[in-house]
């Protein structure tokens, strides 16, 4: 036997200090005089539990005859100890246990010098540094968007090709085969569903790469540090320190972010954070940025997308500071402690799970909400106004949707985009930000004549082409990786061909802005960033913040969106940037 153990020769006891011990002994005495109690519980333990006001024990005692005296006596002891010691007895006893353990550990445990920093400590010293922390966070964000934009581009083209090529052809053939060719149903599928839902699904690769990058940052433990650094900034600005946690959730989706504000304890803080969370660019807004950035800023799309995210954060923080000084004056925020998880290498499985779940959510939304709005929109785009044309056989510019959009369009004239397509997309975009894309695809797609393919490829040829082009995209992606460090292997001539939709948008924006297309595009992106994220987010705000603040939020965002877009467009022209 290796252990020279004493095998419980003497009972284990912690000394709780003179005053407490006196009371314990008093109670032990009574317990020892009550045989029923003595046989049920170890006397000293029972006395300690009674002094700790243990609810479970109190309840059990009430069922034991002859325990009333003990209980009354214990209550008196608790009261008197509380007076003498100044806090709840259970806290003081727990404190004594911690002290006892602490001195025990000091005697038996030898630890390496705590002043020697572990690798984790060293990394934390840099990434949570008071001055470096925020720049490092921004650099990481920039890398994320650069990666997302560059790496996903070839896949984007691939999905685009698959949807508008084989899938469109198969759908047409199928409709023809069941006898619906040359009816309005073909238009519903082609100009409605494939243009709308397909237009959104094109961006699945973008979202996927964004979610991979975010999952890596989360799983490695860095995201927690980012939250800590940003929270420290918010706290220094007088905002609720923990607000940045919901905001990080907002990068994925605004709705759970609004619900996440529920964990802030103070009502004013909850409302204030709930009002700011929508300014975080959610996943649905990214496709809009990507589309416009690739049309108007093909060389700098990563930077432009990053600026949009940054602008959202800056707007949220600035508004927060203003509101805190005016509408939500409150007492100073208390500090808090954050448990930073240890750094670890992200696992493939973990990253894949996050990516899959989030991308799946995006795809699912395309099949439900976006599908429904695309169909409704197709009808609105097919019903003629002013007696010209007939259902599903009308110039789209004369449809109900175009007429309504044209009525609203002048409001956007000063912002540089007043085509009915762009304005209409902002209206339908209230439903969800993906709808901005699907509306544009539908509106612009219907305007162009259907391309007649001379020789329709067979099903097998189509399948072969899909696989081949996927392999090419992967190769392009691999080649594009060195771009991140500034080495271009792709070469100028290999840059992606603009699609018909991109050409149409470019033309339309150049026209509505008198040749200042890129300023108008920037202004459009800012508008999409700032105004109401989606219907579900409005419902969430209604639920969490109440009707009044929801209206404030909706109109506030609209006003701010208009104002900032105005500043971007008109300011840009004034500075002669156009």
């Amino acid at each position, binding site marked *: 036997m290796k252990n020279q153990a004493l095998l*419980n020769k003497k009972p*284990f006891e912690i000394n709780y200090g003179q005053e407490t011990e006196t009371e314990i002994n008093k109670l032990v005495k009574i317990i020892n005089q009550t045989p029923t109690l003595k046989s049920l519980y170890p006397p000293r333990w029972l006395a300690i539990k009674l002094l700790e006001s243990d609810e479970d*024990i109190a309840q059990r005692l009430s069922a034991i005859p002859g325990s009333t005296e003990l209980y009354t006596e214990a209550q008196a002891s608790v009261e008197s100890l509380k007076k003498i010691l100044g806090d709840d007895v259970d806290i003081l006893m727990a404190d004594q*246990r911690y002290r006892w353990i602490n001195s025990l550990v000091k005697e038996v445990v030898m630890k390496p010098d705590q002043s020697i920093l572990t690798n984790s400590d060293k990394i934390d010293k840099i990434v949570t540094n008071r001055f470096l922390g925020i720049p490092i966070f921004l650099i990481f964000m920039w890398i994320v968007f650069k990666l997302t934009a560059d790496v996903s581009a070839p896949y984007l083209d691939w999905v685009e090709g698959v949807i508008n090529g084989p899938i469109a052809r198969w759908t047409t053939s199928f409709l023809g085969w069941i006898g619906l060719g040359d009816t309005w149903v073909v238009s519903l599928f082609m100009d409605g569903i494939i243009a709308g839902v397909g237009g959104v699904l094109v961006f699945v690769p973008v979202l996927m790469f964004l979610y991979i990058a975010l999952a890596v940052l989360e799983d490695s433990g860095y995201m927690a540090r980012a939250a800590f650094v940003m929270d420290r900034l918010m706290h220094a600005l007088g905002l609720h320190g923990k607000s940045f946690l919901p905001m990080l959730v907002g990068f994925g989706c605004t709705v759970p972010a609004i619900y996440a504000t529920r964990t802030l304890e103070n009502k004013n803080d909850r409302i204030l954070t709930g009002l700011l969370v929508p300014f975080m660019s959610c996943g649905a807004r990214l496709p809009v940025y990507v589309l416009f950035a690739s049309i108007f800023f093909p060389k700098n799309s990563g930077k432009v997308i990053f600026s949009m995210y940054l602008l959202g954060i800056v707007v949220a923080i600035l508004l927060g500071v203003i509101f805190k000084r005016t509408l939500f004056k409150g007492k100073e925020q208390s500090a808090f402690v954050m448990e930073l998880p240890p750094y670890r290498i992200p696992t493939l499985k973990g990253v894949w799970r996050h990516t899959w779940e989030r991308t799946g959510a995006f795809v699912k939304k395309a099949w439900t909400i976006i599908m429904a709005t695309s169909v409704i929109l197709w009808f609105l785009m097919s019903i003629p106004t002013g007696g010209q044309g007939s259902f599903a056989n009308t110039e789209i510019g004369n449809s109900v949707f175009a007429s309504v959009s044209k009525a609203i369009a002048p409001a956007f004239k000063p912002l540089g985009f007043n085509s009915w397509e762009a304005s209409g997309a902002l209206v339908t975009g209230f439903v969800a930000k993906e709808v901005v894309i699907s509306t544009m695809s539908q509106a612009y797609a219907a305007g162009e004549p259907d391309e007649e393919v001379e020789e329709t490829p067979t099903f097998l040829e189509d399948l072969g082409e899909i696989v081949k082009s996927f392999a090419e995209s992967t190769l392009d992606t691999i080649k594009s990786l060195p771009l991140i460090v500034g080495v271009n292997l792709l070469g100028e001539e290999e840059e992606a061909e603009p699609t018909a939709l991109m050409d149409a948008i470019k033309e339309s924006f150049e026209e509505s802005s008198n040749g200042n297309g890129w300023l108008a595009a920037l202004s459009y992106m800012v508008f999409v960033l700032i105004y109401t994220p989606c219907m579900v987010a409005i419902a969430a705000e209604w639920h969490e913040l109440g009707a009044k603040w929801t209206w404030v939020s909706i109109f506030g965002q609209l006003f701010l969106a208009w104002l900032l877009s105005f500043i971007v467009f008109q300011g840009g022209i004034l500075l002669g940037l156009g």
Partner: protein
Amino acid sequence: MKKLTIALAGNPNAGKSSVFNVLTGSRQHVGNWPGKTVEKKEGHFQKDGYEITVIDLPGTYSLTAFSPEEVIARDFIIDEKPDVVVIILDSANLERNLYLAVQVLELGARGIAVLNMIDIADSRSIKINKEQLSKLVGIPVVTTVASKGEGISDLMDCIMNIANEVTK
């Protein structure tokens, strides 16, 4: 055959179920604590003429009345009076784990402290003087890496020692 009941107590993640599995092997029974939705694991093994029942108490940080798990754990120790309570401790986070150990011992239970996952503590250069710990707390202390089966025979010896004493 002489009977012996031992209970395993410990914080969540201290490696309680590894110890339980190595001790009992395949002779396990999983059910619920009476009237509770908390899982109860029970196992058996035989050694030196003893039929030994092992009860895996719910993993808790404390033995207050804060959660049903804590109440179950302490009720078992009070009501069933197991012959030995084996307290599984995460060696790398000893200070926090000892808080539960202290409360088990305050209940008057006959305890054995198991410094589990000692390899992790070693890798972090945390040295624990187990003789001194045993002397100061007044119970036997063994070191194990239960997931690899290391130190289990020491633990077994310790249990049998107490068994002989109890049934003397």
